[in-house]
């Protein structure tokens, strides 16, 4: 096996397209995930997240384009170094916990001798030592989730892909896993984190990639994205006619909230011009250019009719394109 250098990105997709029976799941996607990043994959259901992940895992082959993982074309050799927790995951109900983790670890090319101490260590850390010899069907849903998590990471992968890892977990266990992801982050491991919960993405991720209808609509570091869209949302409070806000230059939409209005500006619109327009007409108590929440961006980018806005909302990161 040729060695790869740590300077190479963890994942690089170049002009990747994948169709299923005439339906284009991923369309001409290019994406670079630097090593050591915690990268969020977001997007509505059916957008192409899972198809993208499956191509990274070499489960699906792209119709066109290249997929590189850890410096090598995606293939059997690369998947050994990746831990993947799919969204649709399950266990063999009749297998006991330790045997199951051992089996999945051995499928990743690790020996029994390597795995057994790691299994014990992980079971202890996740509070499952007492359940080591129990059948999976005897475990609660949350415990099964933790077993699945251990099976994903027991072979000590360089890249971890977690698809909705917190679903089914109580807040305590969710925090336990968040802590583990934080540790990996500090240790320089690369984590791809697919989720519908934007708060989790904001809390854990350095960078975010959003896909909608198979196309990339957002890609960059969280800070850059928020900075990029910062001026497009303005919070206004005070006294005056709502129509004044609607008619202000560069305002695309006005959203009513208790005690305030949220002005959504047109791309490139200058908040200062809006402020100048309102001064003297609207008794302003507050005028604030607000950092957009990922949740708001998601709704805006994934909302009806927004798929055509692809490309215009993509920012470039240090490791990106």
């Amino acid at each position, binding site marked *: 096996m040729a060695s790869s250098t740590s300077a190479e990105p963890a994942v690089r997709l170049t002009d990747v397209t994948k169709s299923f*029976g005439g339906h284009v799941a991923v369309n001409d996607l290019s994406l670079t995930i630097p090593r050591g990043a915690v990268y969020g994959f977001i997007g509505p259901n059916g957008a192409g997240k899972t198809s993208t992940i499956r191509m990274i*895992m*070499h*489960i699906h082959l792209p119709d066109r384009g290249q997929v590189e993982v850890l410096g090598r074309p995606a293939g*059997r050799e690369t*998947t*050994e170094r*990746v831990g*993947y927790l*799919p969204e*649709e*995951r*399950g*266990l*063999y*109900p*009749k*297998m006991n916990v330790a045997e199951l983790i051992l*089996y*999945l670890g*051995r*499928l*990743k*090319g690790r020996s029994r001798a390597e795995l057994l101490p790691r299994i014990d260590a992980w079971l202890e850390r996740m509070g499952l030592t007492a359940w080591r010899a129990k059948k999976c069907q005897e475990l609660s849903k949350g415990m099964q989730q933790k077993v*699945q998590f251990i*099976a994903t990471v027991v072979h000590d992968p360089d890249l971890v892909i977690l698809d909705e890892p917190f679903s089914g977990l109580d807040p305590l266990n969710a925090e336990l896993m968040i802590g583990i992801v934080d540790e990996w982050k500090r240790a320089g491991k690369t984590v791809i984190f697919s989720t519908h919960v934007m708060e989790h993405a904001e809390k854990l991720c350095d960078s975010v990639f959003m896909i909608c209808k198979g196309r990339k609509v957002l890609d960059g570091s969280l800070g850059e994205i928020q900075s990029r869209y910062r001026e497009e949302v303005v919070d206004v409070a005070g006294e005056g006619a709502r129509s004044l806000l609607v008619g202000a230059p560069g305002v695309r939409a006005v959203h009513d909230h208790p005690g305030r209005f949220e002005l959504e500006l047109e791309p490139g619109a200058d908040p200062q011009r809006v402020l100048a327009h309102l001064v003297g007409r609207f008794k302003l108590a507050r005028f604030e250019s607000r950092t957009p929440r990922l949740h708001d961006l998601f709704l805006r980018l994934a909302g009806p009719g927004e798929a055509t806005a692809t490309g215009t909302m993509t920012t470039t990161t240090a490791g990106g394109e």
Partner: protein
Amino acid sequence: MASRIWVVAMRDFNAVVRTKGFVIGLLFMPLLMMVSIGLPKLLARFGEQGERRFAVADWSGQLQVPLAAWAAARNAQPGQRLQIVLEPVDLAAKGLAGQPYAQARATLAAELADRARAGELFGWLLIGPRVAQVPPDLVASAVEGEASAATKDEFGLAYAALSLTVGELRQELRGAAREQLRKLRLESAGVDPALIARIDREVKFEEFVVPRDAATGKNAASGMVRSSGSKEVAFPIALVVLLLMGIMQSAGVLLNATIEEKSNRVIEVLVSSISAVDLLAGKLIGAFLTGMVVLLAWGAAAAFTAGHFDLLTAGSLSAANVAWYTYFFVGGFLLFGSVYVAIGAMCNSIQDAQNLMFPVVLLIMLPMLGMTHVLQHPDSAVSHALMLFPFSAPMIMPMRLAQSPPPQLWLVVTAAASVAVGVVVCLLAAGKIFRVAIFSSGKPPKLGDLWRWLREPS
């Protein structure tokens, strides 16, 4: 990657053979064989005891005594738990001797029926007055209608009992009466019964089979081997049944395991570590090993039984034949296994699979339906077709190899090639279907979907 295929194979193998259900199933078949052999003898020990009383009214006056002698001999046999008691009816005392037979018979039957209902009798035997005479050729004499029926009654016997199904008393009595009557009739015709006994002595009919070296097709120099038609056919049929059960058992395991992994959603975790084709290979090997365990256990039991009853024919377990049996078993398993695993990958539940299994069941039935024809007409066009068709060859060809004379070598080799081609085609198709179908959800795919999957590049 081979080690990972083996890891999958061993998991699937252990997941099945470690279960109680498998162990019970494994023991069940040999147990069934032993029970089917020993059960009749065992049950005979628990048969009814006591006596069955029959009234015997003999208008001929000739059968009563020999039947009584027969009953005494029969009852004296060792282990005879149920005694037959024949109670002679005094026809003269009842005033029935001078009456016309039909009338007297009806009168007596009514009385005996009452006694039977009262529990005094189990049944009765009425013996016609002319029963010991040689009857006239009724057809030739054109005697018809009522007269003919009445005449027939006088030459015959009537048996009645509370049950015609309980035990074998009816058959025993009929057999005894027929045998005695035959003697009486021969004597009345002036034929010496001792001469008849000698004439009737069973003609010795020895059966031999000419052994043939299947490998070279030459007649063996050792001459003939004593055998029988039933012996020659027992092992080949047992072989078909055994191979079919072994293949179906292991292919069934494969189907269930695939559906389970798909419905449990384990499959995506697996294919993120091992390619779908390698996973398929591992599953096939695991199921094959399961089938081998079954086949070895049942085969050993069958071989023991066949050996015990001297049903193994010459050369049926020769090294060459065993090698061919193994080849066709592996081929048959891979053929049906690949079809089963493809169906398993397409379905989300056993119910879905049952709907898709219908055409496969027809393929499974083919060797069972054709086996008798092949045994009786081994060189017919239909037999050759069944020997060469990939889905029937794995069962039919071993059967033919076990049958004497074995098929020509070119047929065996062509069947082996046909199975090999079938295996390659089925495995490739199953691999393509498996790779795509394991991610499908909802209803099973339609033919159009399958065709599209099959045409996708590897």
